[in-house]
């Protein structure tokens, strides 16, 4: 399972990477916004996308929409980990097809719970 972590702050990428490692996901790659993430996604081999919303260049919500619009990636599981907490934003993310939405600051338990839930849904 190869996971792409997209966040403009390197510390947040590192935290997510460490938490994922504790959950047994050792294969991770990183990008600092949607623009740098896109070629990595296009190259293929990414099984799971964890992305922030507010980033320079391409924002997470636009990356999500782009992923859903691409026939090769339309079903890629996407987890949003973000400080954006406006009702309208969460509704838009849900409509755009996000698989999970975690608000920062978050805990290791929340990350585990949401990831488990995403895979449960995919498996069923």
């Amino acid at each position: 399972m190869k996971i792409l972590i997209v966040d403009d702050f390197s510390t947040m990428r590192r935290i997510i990477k460490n938490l994922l490692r504790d959950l047994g996901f050792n294969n991770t790659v990183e990008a600092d916004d949607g623009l740098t993430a896109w070629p990595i996604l296009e190259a293929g081999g990414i099984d799971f996308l964890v992305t922030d919303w507010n980033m320079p260049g391409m924002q997470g919500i636009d990356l999500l929409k782009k992923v859903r619009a691409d026939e090769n990636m339309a079903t890629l599981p996407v987890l949003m980990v973000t400080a954006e907490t406006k009702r309208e934003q969460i509704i838009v993310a849900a409509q755009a097809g996000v698989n999970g939405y975690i608000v920062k600051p978050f805990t290791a338990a929340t990350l585990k719970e949401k990831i488990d839930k995403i895979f449960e849904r995919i498996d069923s």
Partner: protein
Amino acid sequence: MDSSNQTSQLEIARSLVTALENNDEQLAAELTLSLGQSQESALFREVGKLTRELHDALNNFEVDARLIDLTENEMPNTRDRLNFVITTTENAAHKTLGYIDQTLPLTSELKKSAEKIDESWHRFRMKELSADEFRQLSKEIEAYLPIVKQHSEQIHANLSEMIMAQGFQDITGQVIRQVIDLVGEVENNLVQLVKVAGKHINDKPKENKQVDPIKAEGPQINAEDNPDVLNNQDEVDDLLSSLGF
């Protein structure tokens, strides 16, 4: 022109008409002259008023001068300061994460060895260990104790470094406080400027400004006061499940 001045000018004008009707040329000439003088004094008053306005305007330029200074010097400086906050917090976070990365394997190693020794010790207490096995256990304990000491010292040192790394809060707090003061000053100056300019401008600020409802805003400050903002993961989960998630 004030009303008393107007009244006196009207009186002079009426006297002038009377003088002309009576063919009193000398009086008419004197009255014409005094009408002109009154006109001149009105002109002087106007010049005086303009001078005062100019003086006020020049004083107001002092507000503008500070604004120019704020724009040209303080603002770029503030950007540097805020970038400094980002760099400092980033460095502190990486430093702390680095020490955590160093410490976790030490604790895992201690735990693993202790579990192994604990198991053998338990068997020894149950008289299940052979003499060879006991010799092996003794060796393991002998090797383990200095490692515990060494690792504990290292863990202690790492934790101390993590404590030191929290010093960023003080440093960045001071810088942010400076920025808050500056923003306050800019606000006051802008209010002054709007007051000065407001004498000439009657336009009210445009209301119903178009806002993008999903524009990324980062962490919400005073979220409790905003009904459009969710306060925690539970509220987000509730909203998502209400959407059939």
